[in-house]
């Protein structure tokens, strides 16, 4: 099977081996797009599936994501040269007044796992910073998180900031966090609500695949 060794190296989180195998494929002349899709993104899909089936935990997934990133770093300059389309760009952050970042970090990690370029704004992020960064990096998706019932309304403020700037429709806005639910997402006009990091990444993957098909 093609990329079997590379796939296993990604799944086991062996960064050094991933780098060696990616370089070997480049030297062999394997198309960059194939290495990216079949050698790096596909095994991360298997890792994600194993997580969903409760076979592994997040730390194992993180190790795999780091190994995948190591391979991706080698491919990135070649992708630009050869015109391979990027998977997509995600801007993520926790709203103003909220200091929680573990859930947000999980989503960021899972987004990296699908091959997206992720810009993590951190915690306690002012509304305007989401807009500014999304515009700066030409993002596809903006993920907004809140963990407190009292900071949840700030998600709406961020969306309003996008509207005020006249750029709301340029971005797919995904929302999440412990107190957030579908009804709230609908009420504030978010595009997507997911209850966990794995679903968020899956939803983003579907969207980006269609967008860049």
């Amino acid at each position, binding site marked *: 099977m093609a990329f079997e060794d590379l796939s296993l190296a990604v799944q086991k989180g062996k960064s050094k081996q991933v780098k060696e195998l990616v370089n070997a494929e480049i030297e062999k002349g394997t198309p960059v797009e194939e290495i990216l899709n079949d050698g790096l993104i596909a095994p991360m899909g298997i890792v994600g599936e194993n997580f969903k089936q*409760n076979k592994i935990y997040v730390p194992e997934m*993180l190790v795999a994501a780091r190994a995948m990133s190591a391979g991706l770093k080698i491919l990135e300059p070649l992708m630009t040269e050869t015109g391979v389309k990027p998977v997509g760009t995600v801007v993520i952050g926790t709203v103003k007044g909220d200091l929680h970042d573990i859930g947000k970090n999980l989503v960021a990690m899972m987004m990296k796992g699908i091959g997206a370029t992720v810009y993590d704004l951190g915690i306690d992020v002012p509304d305007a910073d989401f807009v500014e960064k999304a515009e700066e990096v030409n993002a596809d998706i903006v993920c907004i998180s809140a963990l407190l*019932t*009292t900071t949840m309304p700030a998600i709406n403020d961020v969306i309003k900031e996008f509207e005020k700037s006249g750029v709301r429709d340029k971005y797919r806005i995904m929302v999440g966090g412990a107190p957030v639910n579908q009804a709230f997402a609908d009420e504030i006009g978010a595009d997507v609500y997911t209850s966990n990091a794995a679903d968020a990444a899956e939803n983003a993957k579907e969207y980006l695949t269609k967008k860049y098909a």
Partner: protein
Amino acid sequence: MSLTFDRLAYDSVDDFLYGVCPNPVKTKNGLVIGGGEMYPEVNFTLPPMNINKDTMPEIRSIYKEIIEGVLKKAYELHAPGLVIEFETLPEMTENPEWGLEIHKILKEAMNDYEAKYGLKSAIRMTPNDIREMSRPPVMRSGKYWEAMVKTFEGAAKDGADFLSVESTGGKEVNDEAIMNADLRTSIYALGCLASRDMKWLWKNITEIANANGAISAGDSACGFANTSMVLAEQGFIPKVYAAVMRALVTPRALVAIENGAIGPSKDCAYENVYLKAITGTPITLEGKSAACAHFSPIGNIALAVPDLWSNESVQQVKLLSGFAPVVSTEQLIYDCRLMNVAAKKGHAKLMRDLLVESDCYLDPQAYVLRPDIVFEISEEIVKTQDPFSRTLNTARRTLEILRRGLEKKELSIDERDVAWLDILEGQIEEIPEDEEEFIAEMKEEIPESKYNFSEYINEED
């Protein structure tokens, strides 16, 4: 001068019971915590809404409505006493006048109920640790620390009985360690960073409490151990890591007591059981009746030895019977009523053991809370005096205990968690016994952008 603990506060695990402890705490109005009776501790929060100057009138009226409902229910159900925890929201700590205004509203209503109906109650003021709003955190100066001091001082002057906080020293390093189930970094965050911060922080809080007639009560490692518990519950990280974290935060918690806190320590600190075993101070816990705030695998065992029994927090939302804080109050009062009757009839140990046995074999996080195991881990902790070696030894002993429980087939651990026992044991094998050497190693590994070590240096270092 700080206290030292080199032995347990109990001679026998049979005396380690709920509602009573060797060093009870008495409030200004005579409510004794740990003096023989277990009381409810009710916490509540706002429904989803913005907190700003414009919404403060509405916020004031919501808190008024909540406290009236809670006190009325406590009176109607003949609660022998009650503790209210007011845990501010970050905006209320950043703007101390807002938090203090709410504290005043709550305290006045409590005083009224005592004057009119004889309902004795006490209030715990818990400002947020907003020092982490600066990244990397600025721990000992700046606007966030000053706002916290104003809140502590203002509340103490205005009659707060207990001062508490869920402090976050070292959390900026531990957050990533949790995601990676990285015990080595957690030992650094807790044993080397958090413990140093606790020493400085609790000396300061105790000074404020003592100067203003309040009680320096205690902390919670919520952002460390409870975050681990919740993530383990969601299937994100191994339960065995969360179980080790539960015990691992104890040396950090002990520093608060060594530096002036006298209890009752905060509700979400399940490590309180080790603290009670070592220091004999009263503790609060939460379990099955805090499912309104978060799920846990320790719902019953958490009720085995506390002196106050809490709901963690609940929003002011309407349920079929009434508002959620009132519902919580009723649940806690009935829990405490049963526990107190059992104790009065001489069945406290039986009650404790039933609560323990119903949970302890089903999850490693419950197993480490079993009273005999609490004593075993606590004895390991008091063998040394410095937080780093205490933390490292706690990790080793807790892993040994989990391994032993598994081998004796008395503890249920998922197959994928068994593999993690090996991984965690491997992670701590290489940790040097010498703290300086360990700090030097970790300084190399953790980027300075994440934390500022100089914020953790005490005069004695």
